[in-house]
């Protein structure tokens, strides 16, 4: 006789979504999440509909005069190749989103199970995992990402992987500290009292209570991934030149700045900052909401 296994994860999402309606009433944290989510959503939509709303092909060169400042025809100006900055801004986020999403997925798939099992099982497993993770964590993030990206070569997947490697230890640490705390709580003892198998205790009692902090880390991860991928492109690792990308615009924009062409770096830069800000606000708001016990 088999029993249907309920997915705690599904339940959690259901729990999270109805509470979106209440977010505005949850004070500053709620607003932070709503505003952050709104920013991210708007930018995501903008990236998706870019092909339809862009006045020019973002990679087409010489659609306009070289390095012309913002004007009626080219609201955000043009760069040194005569490309329309507005169109490039619309579609420049695509790569970043892909890289960010992919790196978060990799982190979740790799970091969460390692974190869960190592801290739950304790002992040798925990010591080894912690050692490895701490070693990775000890490297400055961007440097490590650059090193790995340089080894792997260009491409969206490789960029995502290099960011993921840098970030997995953060997930590991947060999950580990949560699991270690929760393991000692009475409700986990209660699960043993009822005769729960270890696996059941881990997935139905510990994991659901760890998920809120995972969500918070993931959103900060997104923010970091956005900035890191901009950084990687900035140093020349990551993407073929032809793809429109804010990171590339930042690189060239920097070189063009001394000649007075501020618009090439400014608008993509603003976009990167806004996107990172949106994710960060969501992440901070979520941490704030989930971590202190909700006071009624």
């Amino acid at each position, binding site marked *: 006789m088999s029993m249907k296994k309920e997915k705690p994860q599904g339940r959690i999402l259901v729990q999270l979504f109805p509470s979106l309606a209440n977010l505005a009433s949850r004070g500053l944290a709620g607003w932070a999440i709503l505003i952050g989510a709104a920013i991210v959503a708007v930018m995501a939509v903008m990236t998706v509909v870019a092909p339809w709303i862009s006045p020019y092909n973002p990679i087409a060169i010489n659609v306009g005069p070289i390095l012309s400042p913002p004007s009626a025809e080219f609201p955000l100006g043009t760069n040194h190749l005569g490309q329309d900055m507005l169109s490039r801004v619309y579609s420049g986020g695509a790569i970043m989103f892909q890289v960010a999403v992919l790196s978060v997925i990799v982190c979740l798939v790799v970091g969460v199970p390692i974190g869960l099992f190592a801290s739950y099982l304790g002992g040798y497993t925990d010591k080894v995992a912690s050692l490895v993770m701490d070693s990775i964590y000890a490297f400055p993030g961007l440097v490590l990402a650059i090193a790995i990206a340089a080894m792997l070569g260009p491409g969206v997947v490789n960029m995502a992987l290099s960011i993921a490697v840098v970030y997995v230890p953060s997930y590991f640490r947060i999950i580990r500290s949560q699991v270690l705390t929760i393991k000692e709580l*009475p409700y986990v003892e209660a*699960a*043993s009292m009822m005769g729960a198998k270890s696996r059941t205790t881990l997935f139905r009692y510990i994991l659901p209570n760890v998920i809120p902090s995972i969500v918070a880390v993931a959103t900060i991860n997104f923010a970091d991934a956005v900035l890191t991928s901009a950084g990687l492109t900035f140093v020349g690792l990551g993407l073929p030149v032809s793809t429109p990308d804010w990171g590339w615009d930042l690189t060239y924009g920097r070189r063009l700045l001394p000649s007075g062409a501020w618009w090439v770096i400014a608008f993509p830069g603003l976009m990167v900052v806004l996107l990172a800000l949106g994710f960060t606000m969501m992440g901070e708001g979520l941490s704030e909401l989930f971590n202190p016990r909700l006071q009624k």
Partner: protein
Amino acid sequence: MDNLLTATNLRKYFPVEKGFLDRLLTSQKSFVHAVDDVSFSVNRGDILGLVGESGSGKSTTGRLCLKLIEPTSGSIMFEGVDLAKLHGEELRRFRKNMQLIFQDAMASLSPRIKVGDAIKHALSFQGVGTASEQTERTRAILERVGLKPWSNFYDRYPHQLSGGQRQRVVIARALVLDPKFVVADEPIAMVDVSVRAQILELMLELKKEFDLTYLFITHDLAMANYVCHSIAIMYLGKIVETGSKEDVFSRPLHPYTLALLSSIPVPDPKAKLERIIPKGEIPSPINPPMGCRFHPRCPYAESICSEREPQLEEIKPHHYAACFFPRHS
């Protein structure tokens, strides 16, 4: 007398965590002597009160009886089965015979699981009945503990209930598996004063209905007096006196019991209180005093008390005390 559970020479020592330098410089290990050679038995149908202050080892003893922690030495026999021999799957299945009612109801319920489901888990983990049978039983037990109608409570989360309601959920969860033996660890300490008696009455009714045996762990002597049949007084990891409630509370033998009884606040301004309050506080269980553990604070201590440790002896019929100079009234 039908012995349901017998503890023999139980010991539990917890190693003390040392700082890094201490570990380098000294090789000596120190231990918290939480439970130090404790023996007792609980008869079927009895309510045994394990009474003591902090550091007495009463909570640890309770958890040893349930095999939530392993003893350093000693044994527990439950209905003739040696708990030390139970492992893995066999132990898991055995758990339905004995359950725990927690002190902190809020902390003992996962904040992300509905209370109805939390109770149902007990049944599903043990594979009792079909899913719908499990739901039926859960609904029935919710109503039995006074959470009527079940539909008002099944889908609630712990933080949506009051303290008393949460405690009932914890009781329901402990009893849904129809155990024989229930350890209640300070079950009413965190419940409002005016509602405590209601929870106690519920526990007593359920005892009759489910034919239970209770081990009631508490520091509240007045409550222990109200509910328990037999009492064991613990101090610094040892049982210092044991007997029926009447014997221990009305004709106490051990000076510590006397001290406890005279320290309880009495809600009657006209009561004449004869206070024998010992000086000082409970010493650390890492280095308990030599000889009788209570001797540094005992108003009746003599030289032998610091040299030799008194054993539990039957001073009067069925009334035991570990003292060289028990106080006969």
